[in-house]
């Protein structure tokens, strides 16, 4: 049987003792690094950026070359600031082209890589935040088959919160339903041993207000519940002898890839 590309993708990381999420970050970093410098190249004034950077370097050198002449040194500092401002102004437009699409990409990736799904049998917390503290007693939990509460609810009056501790019997996508004053709100719970899309919290509000944090539809605006959170464990990636938050690893690797491709493609950034 001929292995598919996807099979290869799953096998190759094992050869290098890199797990799938790390390999995914590695691959995405290289692709994104390349794409970003290419986008930067075509959306920026390359010549102006090169001149601005050269001026920055020149004024830095001036500080060193004329170090005993205070007047020259001070004026060089001023010119360094001006040149930096000019560079940032030139970098702003291409940065917009780069940052906005990448922001949405990263938000989506964070659903997969930011937190790990729950494991079967592993206890986890479900927190519900209500609009008023006096309705906490009215909040109740309705569990779907496969989920079980492992402790009674805890009310945190000061924060308007009710907290339950649950556990799942086996892998699967579950819903927990919370009833408050006759209204029912649901929240997805993902139990899996693989890479899965998870959303730790469900919120009220417009999409752009929720987009960084929640991957689920908004809660009703006139409802009694402000937020429902599931305590997924955060994911750390092992790479180069360190434990990394995926986004820092992505930052470092994509930056390295960007600098590599910038040199190879002679792109001024």
């Amino acid at each position, binding site marked *: 049987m001929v292995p598919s590309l996807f099979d290869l993708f799953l096998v190759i990381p094992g050869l290098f003792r890199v797990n799938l999420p790390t390999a995914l970050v590695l691959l995405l970093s290289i692709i*994104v690094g390349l794409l970003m410098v290419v986008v930067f190249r075509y959306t920026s004034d390359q010549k102006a950026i090169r001149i601005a950077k050269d001026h920055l370097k020149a004024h830095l050198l001036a500080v060193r*070359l004329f170090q005993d002449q205070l007047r020259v040194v001070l004026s060089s500092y001023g010119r360094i600031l001006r040149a930096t401002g000019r560079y940032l102004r030139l970098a702003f437009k291409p*940065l917009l082209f780069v940052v906005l699409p990448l922001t949405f990409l990263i938000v989506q990736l964070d659903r997969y890589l930011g937190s790990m799904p729950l494991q079967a049998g592993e206890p986890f917390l479900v927190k519900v935040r209500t609009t008023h503290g006096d309705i906490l007693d009215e909040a109740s939990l309705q569990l779907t088959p496969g989920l079980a509460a492992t402790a009674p609810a805890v009310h945190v009056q000061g924060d308007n919160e009710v907290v339950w501790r649950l556990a799942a019997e086996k892998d699967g996508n579950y819903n927990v339903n919370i009833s408050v004053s006759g209204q029912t709100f649901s929240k997805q719970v993902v139990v899996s041993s693989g890479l899965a899309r998870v959303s730790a*919290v469900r919120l009220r509000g417009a999409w*752009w207000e929720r987009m960084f944090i929640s991957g689920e539809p908004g809660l009703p605006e006139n409802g009694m519940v402000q937020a429902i959170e599931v305590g997924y464990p955060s994911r750390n990636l092992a790479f180069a002898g360190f434990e990394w938050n995926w*986004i820092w690893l992505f930052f470092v690797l*994509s930056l390295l890839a960007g600098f590599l491709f910038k040199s190879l493609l*002679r792109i001024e950034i």
Partner: protein
Amino acid sequence: MKWYQTHPSRKRGMLYACLAVFALILLFPMRSEAYAGPGAGFAVLSSFWTLFVAFLYSAYAFISWPFRHLFRLLRHRKAYGNAQIKRAVILGFDGMDPELANRFMGEGKLPNLAKLRGHGTFRKLRTTFPAISPVAWSTFMTGVNPGKHNIYDFLARDLSNYLPLLSSVEIRAPKRSFRIGKYTIPLGKPQMKGMRHGTPFWHWLGKAGIFCSVIRVPVTFPPEKFPGVLLSGMCVPDLKGSQGTFCLCTTRGHTDAFREGGVRVPIDRDGSVCRSYIPGPEDPLAGGSGSELRVSFEIRPDPGKNRARITVDSESFIVQVGEYSEWISVKFKAGLGFNARGMCRFYLKEVSPEVEVYVTPVNIDPGKPDLPISHPVTYSIYLAKLFGPYATLGLAEDTWALNEKVLDDQAFLTQCYANHEDRERMFFDALEKTRQGLCACVFDTTDRVQHMFWRYLEEDHPAARDVPRDQRPNVIEDLYCRMDALVGRVMKQIDDETLLLVISDHGFKSFARGVNLNAWLHQNGYLMLNQEKKESGDWFEDVDWSRTRAYTMGLNGLYLNLIGRERYGIVQPNGEADALKEELRHKLDGLADPASGRVSISGVFDCDSMYAGPYVDNAPDLIVGYGEGFRASWDSVMGKVTSQIFEDNLKAWSGDHCIDPRLVPGVLFSNRKIADEKPAIVDVAPTILKLFGLGLPAHLDGKPWSVTAGNGVAVQTEVQPES
């Protein structure tokens, strides 16, 4: 506000939301949700990192400044203590002629120089023997005669084989190397040894704590360490190690080699694409086999638009016919990671029916110099970052290309003034940075333009006989006006405590007739050829040294073939040599040109009586001073014996100064009164040292001038020798 609370306002537009998102990303990072990709990362590293480094360095410089200043005060507590000036600004206009300056001032064309003449000083400045730029500028900076600084010409001779050497610098391959298969791997950098001796006066100033900015003074390569900044000028080689080798890439099938200064390279056509190459330096891995490195490039002519697209490596650009490209970086790859970096400009001559591209000599890239061309090495980088790439070659104006008619007048002038504008920018930056101390800059343009356009000044110059009088451009007049404007801008930027000197190393005269002194020596029995030949090849090919008593090489030097000095010497030193010198002087002095009866040699000078110092043994035996309108012929300079002694000079190089030095003094303008009636270029160094209140080293040959200070008090001129 906690992460799960809703925003109070939901009635904001989409645009505002996007901007808010962006601002949030940049300003309020939240846990791992904060964006931190390469785009932002680049901005951080490229600007904030620079700022961070700048801040750290600034903080260090700022905090340590009082200590360093105190240290400097203690170490140089006398700096400026006895100075009568705060700053000296020296503008060197190579070859500015006092007679022309006087004429144009008289015509009201040089108002700023006329102002200096009126309120300060205008004198002829006595030059050196011989009146050649490397000699004169070496004397300018060291304050000594050539016997003490060792520069007598552009060329020196190798006594073992009578072949020429560059007089100012010796560049050799690295001392050690090892072989791997076909490769010879050099260990270390090429060895460079400056042949000019003596101490430039800015070294004395620097030691005393007086800051100096020195730009493009000739014979400052390789740059020497001193407390100040310096950019080397004349004598900086190109990447091939020559003083400038241009390249003409052409589809025309010429086989003639250029006489000097350039190479012809074929262009291969392949449909609409043409391919050629730029010859580069010798392959450092070839173990001295002489194989050269090359950079290939592609030309796509567009005859319809009278232009071409040229691609070198991955860089592609469009050039119109009759225009220059920007400076283009080129990398000559030798293998095993060894490469040489340089830069050149392309000038598109023609795209149809033939294709011709002129490529300037490959200059050392000032932003990434393979050889140091400044002190500190970062100074050339600083200038390149601030103003962009600039010509670094010592003789950057390609006079050979105009001589060989590869460039026309306009293309040459465009090149000259592009270089000149770069140097003006550098100079004014140095002037701004040097509020106290010395700021000196030499502009070559005056020399090159006069060399190449003197033909239009004269009624009947052989090189311009076919150009009607009314079609001759006023190039030299325009040149002097530009220099005057430069002086005007400098005068606006200096105060009463600044001394301004505008000097030239020599003047200019016509070069209409060439004198082949080797031919004269041959015809008069002093130089013998093998097998009774009538002519020799270049560099004394076919000369029978066993019967030769005298020869000439370079522009003004005449040498005896001395026993114990030259390898095949036959003339006994002292008695016989002295008699031979006297005989030659007697015969050559007043030598008349049979075509006109004019005196072609107005003086022959015995070097024994002119020079004194540790390097007099390297001097010629006689200096030949040609008369006005004459100079050593092109063949004579290259050690060639021809059948004719006199010939018309038909080259664009039509003006010269390598004649009797008494005929070509330089200029001296100043914003102060200088009392001396006969100032000389050798006096500049002691004068500047004296004005800054420094004692004069005892070995100096020059004498400080009597300069009237700003308050009207004459500066004391007694020389106080230093122990």
